[in-house]
């Protein structure tokens, strides 16, 4: 028997049978769960804290007031924009009504 043949035979006969501890998988999942819950606790804790501050009546009233003022301001700006556009259209309508050339162009 040549040395190579002997080596090949030994390699064929060799097998590995790893033995993991019973608790291995459980421990891994536990570690993952602990990390995730820690992260969630961090976010939810921050949210709860922010909410508890914001929902204090004086802060809630201030936020409500700010929202009212903002919505009023936005409505005013939007209305101004729409009104100026309508004003331009009305001007064009009047000018067209006395300009036969434009009237003929519109009627085409």
């Amino acid at each position, binding site marked *: 028997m040549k040395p190579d043949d002997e080596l090949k035979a030994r390699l064929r006969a060799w097998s590995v049978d790893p033995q993991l501890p019973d608790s291995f998988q459980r421990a891994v999942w536990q570690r993952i769960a602990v990390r995730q819950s820690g992260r969630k606790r961090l976010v939810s804790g921050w949210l709860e804290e922010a909410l*508890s501050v*914001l*929902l*204090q*009546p004086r*802060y*809630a*009233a201030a*936020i*409500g*007031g700010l*929202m*009212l003022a*903002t*919505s*009023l301001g*936005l*409505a*005013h700006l*939007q*209305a*101004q924009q*729409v*009104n100026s*556009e*309508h*004003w*331009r*259209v*009305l*001007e*064009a*309508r*009047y*000018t*067209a*009504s*006395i*300009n*036969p*050339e*434009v*009237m*003929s*162009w*519109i*009627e*085409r």
Partner: protein
Amino acid sequence: MRKGAVLLIVGIVLSAVLYIAYYCFATAPMAGMLKQPGGGLEWLRREFHLTDAQYARIHQLHDSYAPACARMCEKVTRANARLEEVIRRNDGVTVEVQAAMEESAAVRRECSLAMLAHAYVVSAEMSPDQGQRYLEMIQSRLVEPGLDYDALVSKAGR
């Protein structure tokens, strides 16, 4: 905390209601003017601060000018249609094309003169400063007719 939540929700609802109410209230008069047929004249009344008497006289002038304006509008339409047809039929600047173009230009000049004459009469009914401002507006439309007529057509729905 509960009281705060109620306050916040009331704030949100009130803000939305206030936004809609203010917007509708602020845009309703102008939207109404836009819908009514005489919106252009109503615009003139407000823009040039016309008194009721001035407005009545200008309205009358406008009504008496309207038929002549409509006749000229037809003339412009006919002249333009003829010009288009002649341009299509010819393959160069022929005598026929020149004649059609001159006819179209003459009609347009007639229209501009009629509009200017009407503008002078209307401005004479206004207070001097408003009349001057009105004439300046008409002059700018005659010299630089880059008015937003696309918007006019789209709003009027033709």
